[in-house]
């Protein structure tokens, strides 16, 4: 009984965004973080592990330095990680990425009671496509925007958070669930995790390992094979940071006066 979580290492967009000549992100020159929604998916998986004893396996596609992120996830409690990495996979769009990840997950294998999870979307591309596309390619049911997950045998009850309300859906495993930040508060690593994670299992799946899988079509992976191409990337002009004070009493105005005084505005 396991939960597979797909995660992505993304540029820390609170820093400066750099772009290559071909329009793709210059990831090498930017600080990276674990995509925030993916952390919520990992937390959901770890909570289910705490309760039901699942094994949690994380998959990511990316360059070799993504190992640092995978070690960090194992320090949080993930049992095993798989790094899908090859030159041929570089520059893939969501269509190509989901094809490769689906092939990797299928190669690893999943059973009747297994769950696949992903973050809703990555903060670099904001597409929210990879999770659902993996589900389609693996012919699995999918439930997106999960804000709450309950398990009863082979059936999950998922609360989908939508703009104007919520929807409760029952789904049979195996299935794909995409998670949003309202689902939970991701845990920290443990001290023992930071000691142990370096000896935990990390498998690398390269092009050789996946090229014969039926989902892999060499002409539709990587930058050249991706149907979408980036026309232009740029950093939007920065907006001033705002601050919202709640309440209409004297306490709030006093707080406002305090802040303005502290900043020497008044």
């Amino acid at each position, binding site marked *: 009984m396991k939960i597979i979580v797909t995660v992505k290492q993304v540029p820390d967009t609170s820093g400066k965004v750099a772009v290559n000549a071909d329009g793709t992100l210059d990831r090498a020159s930017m600080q990276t973080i674990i995509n925030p929604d993916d952390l919520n998916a990992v937390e959901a998986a770890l909570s289910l592990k705490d309760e039901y004893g699942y094994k949690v396996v994380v998959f990511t596609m990316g360059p070799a330095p993504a190992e*640092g992120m995978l*070690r*960090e996830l194992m*320090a949080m409690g993930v049992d095993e990680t798989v790094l899908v990495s090859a030159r041929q996979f570089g520059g893939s769009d969501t269509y190509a990425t989901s094809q490769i990840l689906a092939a990797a997950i299928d190669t690893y294998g999943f059973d009747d009671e297994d769950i696949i999870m992903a973050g809703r979307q990555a903060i670099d591309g904001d597409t929210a496509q990879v999770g659902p596309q993996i589900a389609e390619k693996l012919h699995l049911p999918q439930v997106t925007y999960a804000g709450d997950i309950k398990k009863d045998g082979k059936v999950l009850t998922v609360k989908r958070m939508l703009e104007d309300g919520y929807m409760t859906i029952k789904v049979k495993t195996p299935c794909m669930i995409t998670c949003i930040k309202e689902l939970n508060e991701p845990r*920290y*690593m*443990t*001290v*023992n995790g*930071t*000691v*142990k*994670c*370096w000896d935990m299992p990390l498998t690398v799946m390269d092009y050789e390992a996946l090229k014969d899988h039926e989902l892999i079509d060499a002409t539709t992976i990587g930058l050249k094979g991706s149907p979408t191409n980036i026309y232009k990337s740029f950093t939007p002009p920065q907006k001033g940071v705002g601050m919202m004070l709640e309440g209409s009493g004297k306490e709030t105005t006093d707080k406002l006066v*305090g802040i303005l005084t*502290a*900043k*020497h505005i008044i």
Partner: protein
Amino acid sequence: MILDKKHALQRKLFREFAENEFTKELQDELEATGEFNWDIHNKMAKYGFMGTKIPEVYGGQGGDYLSYAIMDEELARQNLCLSIYANTSNSLGGGPLMIAGSEEQKQKYLPPVASGEKILVFGLTEPGAGSDAGGTTTTAIPDGDDFIINGRKCFISGAPVADWIIIFAKTDLTKKGSRGISMFIVDMNLPGVSLGAHEKKMGIKGYPTCDVVFEDVRIPKENLIGPLHKGFQYAMKTLDGGRLGVAAMSVGLGQACIDEAVKYAKERKQFGRPIADFQGVSFMIADMEAEIEAARQLVYHAAVLKDAGDPEAGLACSKAKYFAAEAANRAAYKAVQIHGGYGYIAEYRVERLYRDARILSIFEGTSQIQQVVIANGLLK
């Protein structure tokens, strides 16, 4: 020193935790009430902080002295008082058991201490025995299969919330000075153990401190830790490790002073420009940065020596503690100076940093005691 991947990851954990969890509200509450905060204690315990340096076989996390130093540094960068929460079990509390405890004692006491379920504190200081710990007058007299303890320990950090205390007591009354002292672990709930009033301290207010009084307290012989009459040398060994922790906290607090000073110097305008533009201010910041970085390197170096079991490690801890605690105090002075009048107002963080810094050159061996240790290393 460039940290290896493991220690760099640990720094990330401690930094993220302290930045997110040590909120201004929590810090203000500790300052206002002076009370121990169980919620944050439990949360730190959940992630293993209480057992960072305790071996895994005794329920700890299996980190090393460098992990422990990085933890104290990163936690103290946000709040000195809260760094002490995680420090005690790894140093003065758990330390004597790790150094001198029997296998049975380690199995009994360390796991609940490492998990944060029980709090173990250290009682060496007495009203008449501070830097001169050899002046201990608390006694432990054998009586059948027991010892009877009488005496008073003072300035015991964490005593009001402690389950157990490690104490040092005279067991051979014929011996003078540091000889004839033994180390014991005492249950704080035993008849005859009582607490003095909470001390009103200048800083580190959310970690309560008080006297512990022993009146005919009967403890079984199994509570003797290490050999009879040889407790003093273990106290000194424990303090070596503790000094490393205080040195690391000093680096963290010093870094907090730099963080605040840099932010304020860029923000505050006088004579039509940020005060950072004036060399009188920027040079103070340069001094702080150079000194705290030097202190950090001394701390990491001492930690690596401790981990390697190097015989020079104890001396390195004293050097690190002496330099880092003094550097932190200089940094706190400068941070307040850069803030001018605002630095003297409690609403500004540097006011608390300045008060908190003051304990660093006092507890676990004053700067002057560290100088004695360092000088003795050269001259004797």
